[in-house]
């Protein structure tokens, strides 16, 4: 696979633009998933590219840009999540628990997240192989961003059935894609 390195970048704005175009979207997607705030997510990704620009000359020519950007964005998101947890310290237990799991799941996310092109094919294939109903429900939920209720109306199913299909799809995908999912080292943390 093509490994972008910094000697190619080397102050050249066109090259920088290419890199931006290549990575903005997956990085944005990553932060949006965890921060659930579009503006904040854009800002995190912007920050990462600013950092990259600032240190472009100091970076080792063999540095892996993909991992560099991924790590920056991930760490910034983790900082933000941590801070949100602190702000919530004394109230809203549910939000805090939610935040805790967001934090843990992001911190366990392997840097292979960025090797999305390869993975995408595998995922697409696995989705295509789902049982018909499961696939349709999964696609509507994931790609059309429909609510369970909306999917139920559209397909004339009950909401329960939609949720069952979605769950089944996830179970199957998880087994099919087992080897591509990150191995997450769990650290037991007590929620206080």
């Amino acid at each position, binding site marked *: 696979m093509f490994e972008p390195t910094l000697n190619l970048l080397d102050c050249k704005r066109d090259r920088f633009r290419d890199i931006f175009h290549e990575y903005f979207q997956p990085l944005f997607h990553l932060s949006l998933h965890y921060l659930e705030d579009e503006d904040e997510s854009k800002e995190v990704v912007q920050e990462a590219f600013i950092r990259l620009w600032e240190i472009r000359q100091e970076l080792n020519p063999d540095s892996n840009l993909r991992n560099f950007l991924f790590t920056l964005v991930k760490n910034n998101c983790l900082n933000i999540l941590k801070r949100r947890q602190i702000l919530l310290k004394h*109230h809203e237990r549910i939000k805090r628990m939610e935040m805790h799991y967001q934090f843990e799941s992001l911190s366990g996310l392997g840097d292979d997240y960025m090797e999305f092109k390869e993975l995408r094919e595998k995922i697409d294939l696995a989705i295509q192989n789902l049982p018909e109903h499961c696939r349709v429900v999964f696609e509507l939920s*994931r790609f059309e961003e429909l*609510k*369970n209720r909306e999917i139920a109306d559209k397909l004339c199913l009950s909401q329960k059935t939609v*949720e069952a299909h979605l769950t089944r799809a996830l179970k199957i995908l*998880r087994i099919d894609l087992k080897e591509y999912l990150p191995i997450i080292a*769990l650290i*037991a943390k007590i929620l206080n």
Partner: protein
Amino acid sequence: MKFDLLSRILTGEANAEEKEQFYLKLGDNKASEQMFYEIKSLWLRSSLHKNNIDIDSEFDILCNRIIQPAKQSSYPIWKRAVQYAAIILFVLIIGGLSGYLLSNINQKYADSGVQKNSSLKGSVSIVEFGDGTKVWLNSGSQLNYSEDHKGKKRIAELTGEGYFEVAHDAEFPFFVKAGNIMIRDLGTTFNIKAYPGDKTIETSLVEGKADIISGKGNSAVTLKPGDCAIYYNENKRIEIKPIVENVLSAWRDGKFVIRDQRLEDIFKEISRWYDVEIRFENQKLKDYRYTGIIKKSTTSQHVLKMLKLTTKFNYRIIEKPAEPDVIIVY
């Protein structure tokens, strides 16, 4: 793991009760926790090709931010980016690299029976009293609390901003002293903003009933939920306005909400939060007005940068190791 809940959790459709049930169960079992992370990661990865972001305009913004320190250049993207920036009124920003830390409540029990609580600059603390009363203290605020058993009174003295959820006790009323005024609760949730140096003291009543008592002990105004009483220190007048709800809760959620406010007032808030001193060299700038929401979990420099995007002003920072940094705006 409750699988039927899982799909609702991932799609964000679970309600608070379901979330609680789900996450509590999850914490009990490592295997299901592991499975949850796997499936969450799968969920994330499966939608990677979705894209409705205008990457070109994002790149323009980036270029603008990169070029800024090096004065004006004739770079064409810069021009477009400035136009873009000028229409941003609603600014949400974040700086993950910021260095400040949030601190906890600094709680002390003085011998005199006065309980002192303060919130350091850059933090929000929460104080809970034995009677169930809860107070959120905004950055740089102080609350002294004492119980007068003879006079059957609970007395809190506030400097700064606090959000009170008072456990009402008709036998033992709760008073808050802020500057020249006193607020008596009659079963209440309210917010008081009384920073020294501000021209006004603002009392906003969210729930219940409260009286504002003037210096002489007469009940001056009775507030209804949704009322905000603005007390002018200079002429001791009180004006009642409707509450701007958003603003009230925002500081507790770590946000600045700016609603058509003057730059001078905005900077006052910023200096409280970040513990910096801000001086204006160009007095005209003080009256510029802005609207927007800014998350506090960023650096002061970032906030300045964002405000600067829409107005022409400059600033320089004088770093002082032992005292607050000074930011000069011109």
